[in-house]
């Protein structure tokens, strides 16, 4: 019997399979879970999808930090719904990774033991309420710029998960922008709070697109496999071009004196990124690396008895008891 779970080796020799795979990629067809795929393709996808899923669930923390202090009930409802979406997006993505034979437990274990990464952006603290807005506008904005092309990624389940994620994320960026706009147009103290947040989040947001193309070790292969559709620098430029006019409408400035329109290129020029900060945060030395991972581990450990209890109950009661009805 064959099930939905993927197979890694079905015999028949890799040569013929490789040809079918290459032809599918060349024809812009989707690769589906049980198709033969090169081990390196599978490994790249698992790494990327896992990192993406981890980012969603670690990313809940900086924003959840403000749920209990949200300054109006409307904002509180929006923020709760947004943080909830992040848990949901983590679930969609872990579910995509399962189709490659990587169980959620295994991936969580790798996250908890530091063997898999999440986006470094979440290693920065949310110091004020305005940070919630800056995350929505800049961090989610950068994420969306990165993610929209992933809706056409060559691996079917990942592409489908991203379609759902992108559809739901559109409100995330807007709520952040609206939040910052209210602050920018509010009292002097509120305006200053908004500017301070944008000053702190701008550069880390640009780093979210990853190292420059000439220093990015995975990029070329991922582009060839159509997992990735645009280079890091292309996407970063697109993001800067989008943000500059949006900042003007907000009445806030971006903290880069070299930012100016370049008529010839048809793009905004911007100043050099401090990659030493990026690498330090990536290495684990950011302001919140330890805190984020500790909290994640603690939630998981403290939940162990609950997960065990439900599993024990299911064993006792046959797993399908109660009001389950026949599908019709």
């Amino acid at each position, binding site marked *: 019997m064959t099930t939905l779970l993927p197979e890694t080796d079905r015999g028949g020799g890799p040569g013929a399979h490789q040809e079918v795979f290459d032809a599918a990629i060349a024809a812009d067809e989707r690769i589906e879970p049980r198709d033969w795929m090169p081990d390196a393709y599978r490994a790249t996808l698992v790494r990327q999808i896992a990192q993406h899923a981890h980012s969603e669930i670690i990313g809940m923390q900086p924003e959840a930090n403000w749920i209990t202090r949200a*300054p109006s009930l409307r904002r509180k409802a929006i923020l709760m719904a947004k943080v*909830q979406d992040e848990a949901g997006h983590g679930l969609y993505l872990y579910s995509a990774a399962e189709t490659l034979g990587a169980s959620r437990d295994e991936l969580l274990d790798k996250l908890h033991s530091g063997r898999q990464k999440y986006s470094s952006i979440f290693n920065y603290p949310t110091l004020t309420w305005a940070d919630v807005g800056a995350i929505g506008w800049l961090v989610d904005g950068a994420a969306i710029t990165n993610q929209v092309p992933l809706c056409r990624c060559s691996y079917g389940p990942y592409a489908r998960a991203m379609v759902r994620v992108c559809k739901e994320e559109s409100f995330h960026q807007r709520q952040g922008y609206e939040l910052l706009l209210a602050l920018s147009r509010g009292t002097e103290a509120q305006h200053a709070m908004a500017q301070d947040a944008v000053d702190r989040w701008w550069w880390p947001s640009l780093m979210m697109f990853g190292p420059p193309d000439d220093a990015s070790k995975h990029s070329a292969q991922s582009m060839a496999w159509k997992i990735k559709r645009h280079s890091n620098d292309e996407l970063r430029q697109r993001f800067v071009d989008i943000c500059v006019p949006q900042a003007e409408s907000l009445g806030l400035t971006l903290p880069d004196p070299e930012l100016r329109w370049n008529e010839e290129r048809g793009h905004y020029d911007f100043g050099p990124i401090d990659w030493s900060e990026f690498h330090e945060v990536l290495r684990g030395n950011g302001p919140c690396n330890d805190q984020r991972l500790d909290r994640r581990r603690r939630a998981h450990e403290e939940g162990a*008895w609950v997960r065990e209890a439900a599993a024990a109950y299911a064993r006792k009661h046959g797993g399908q008891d109660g009001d389950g009805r026949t599908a019709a």
Partner: protein
Amino acid sequence: MSAPRTAVLALGDDALVLSHRLGEWAGNAPVLEEEVALANIALDLLGQARALLTMAGDEDELAYLREERAFTNVQLVEQPNGDFAHTIARQLYFSAYQELLYERLADGGTDDAELAALAAKAVKEVAYHRDHAEHWTLRLGDGTETSRKRMKDALEGLWRHTGELFRPVEGLDVDWAGLDEQWARRITGVLERAALTVPEGPRSSPWAAGAGRQGVHTEPFGRMLAEMQHLHRSHPGASW
């Protein structure tokens, strides 16, 4: 006729405070699927709170600028989350009560049409909350030795806050004693199925000062409000 203010505030505060407590779970739930479930319940309750408080005035003024003694939520909902079993026990006790009360309000328990309509909508949400709490009560009660002990402790620990649920609220035409009986039957039924026993001991405090409906709260509530209100209060008159 406009909604009876005392009643609307009491019910609104219940929903507001419990929603806040559930919001504290964000990022801390035992499993990702439960993050989504708890947030759904919190959002339903926050929606109810906003509608109810708006019937009594400005929702943000009421939520952020009242002092502790002006809040009339029952003490049960302000109890700290504790472990997952405590959160489930609190939810079980409260949603069973809320469902019965809202059913009654949707069906003649108030002559205010707006409140009746709100109750009719909310009762569907609350039925799901109660179902969620019941399913978890069964799994924790009849799961492992550890979970059974934790669930039992939680049910017993919160028991003394259940009597207050059935103190009459001014402006509502409800047979409170009858509601209490129905509630007890329902809880007994669930606990029996979960291989647990109904706690014994007093269901309310002997203190003459009263309890939540009189604005008398437990110590953790003041801290909760301090956290909830501080940003709003730091910027008087600002809009968000």
